[in-house]
């Protein structure tokens, strides 16, 4: 492999690693750090990169053109972030070569699977019912809150799968949560609609964007931090509008 091909492979590997990390909810410092570390360990002292939330620009050496990659979708899959971190660490310890690193990154969608859907539903049940007790200490509505949260997550995943509009899935899920909670109160199955809605919204809280926004701003990244913050605020507003629409309609 000559110098030019090696530099090209390095840039491709760095861009793919950065893209996977940003798409799956890593903070920006970690992405910049990982790209720098990969290029230093591969022997490219003059590699430069510029990382934002929607794209990465990188050049391997000063006499070669820079490469760009765009990032359109952002989901939460922290296991992939952790796995890319592991690969980078193995590459630094010379356990895998650069080519092997690239092949593994290409395969990551097949290697790292999310939890099965029924387990996600059980997770949503756990989050809603337990946090309803922690926040409101209403022991009677444990089961009802869990079921409302499970339904909310089900609607959220379903709309996420079949539509491409951001924030629509949160909005529809919040409307469903509001309607079902008020119906459960009308049917005299549960006591307090407020507790049910608070519990049911908990699995949809934008925890990843909030945390990343704070961490990005604190590290001085004034492009990506505020845009993450806006993402979090938009999600929260979509949830709020959905719930207040349900309250407004049903009273």
């Amino acid at each position: 492999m000559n110098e030019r091909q090696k530099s090209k492979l390095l840039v491709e590997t760095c861009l793919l690693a950065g893209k996977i990390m940003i798409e799956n909810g890593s903070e920006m410092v970690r992405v910049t750090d990982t790209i720098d570390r990969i290029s230093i360990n591969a022997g490219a002292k003059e590699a430069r990169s510029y990382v934002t939330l929607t794209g990465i620009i990188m050049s391997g050496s000063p006499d070669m053109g820079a490469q760009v990659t765009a990032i359109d979708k952002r989901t939460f899959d922290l296991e992939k972030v952790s796995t890319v971190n592991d690969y980078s660490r193995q590459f630094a310890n010379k356990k895998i070569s650069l080519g092997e690193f690239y092949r593994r990154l290409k395969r990551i969608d097949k290697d790292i699977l999310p939890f099965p859907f029924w387990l996600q539903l059980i997770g949503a049940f756990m989050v809603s019912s337990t946090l309803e007790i922690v926040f409101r200490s209403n022991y009677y509505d444990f089961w009802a809150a869990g079921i409302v949260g499970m339904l909310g997550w089900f609607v959220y995943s379903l709309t996420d799968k079949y539509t491409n509009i951001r924030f629509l899935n949160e909005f529809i899920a919040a409307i469903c949560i509001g309607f079902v909670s008020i119906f459960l109160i009308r049917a005299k199955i549960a006591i307090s609609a407020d507790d049910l809605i608070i519990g049911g919204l908990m699995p949809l809280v934008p925890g990843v964007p909030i945390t990343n926004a704070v961490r990005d701003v604190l590290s001085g990244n004034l492009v990506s931090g505020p845009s993450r913050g806006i993402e979090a605020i938009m999600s929260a507003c979509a949830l709020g509008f959905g719930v207040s629409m349900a309250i407004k309609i049903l009273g």
Partner: protein
Amino acid sequence: MIIIFPLIINILCVYFATIGFGILINLPRKALNVAGIVSLCGWLVYHIVDVHLNSYLFADILGTFTVGFLSIFASRYKKMPVIIFNIPALVPLVPGGQAYQVMKCLAIGNYALAKANLIQVIFIAGGIASGFLFSEFLNQLYNRFKAYMKEKRAMR
């Protein structure tokens, strides 16, 4: 006994809520248990300060500080990114109740109560951010100290 019983139930609830949220954002399977314990410690600090000092803002700052501090240790121990332990541990500290009250009050037209709740939400969000700030500050101080000691040893 009467006082301690709800506390035990709440502790179990926070632990399982963290694991449930971890399943939703696909944490690595090896990290689930440690993330639950980090979250539990953070919530305990939050709860104790909230009950005994009666200040939700201070409680949130100290709770988030504990979370940030412990998750740095957890990430060193498990060799995983810090956010893996930060994000699920934040969920019991999020001002969900107040944020919901803001929306509900706006929907039913009680603007005064909505404003009061909104101010609480903003203060809690600021508290969470400053808690992270303090823990990050301590982490960098520790790293500097370690680098300084290494340099000093190399000079000798």
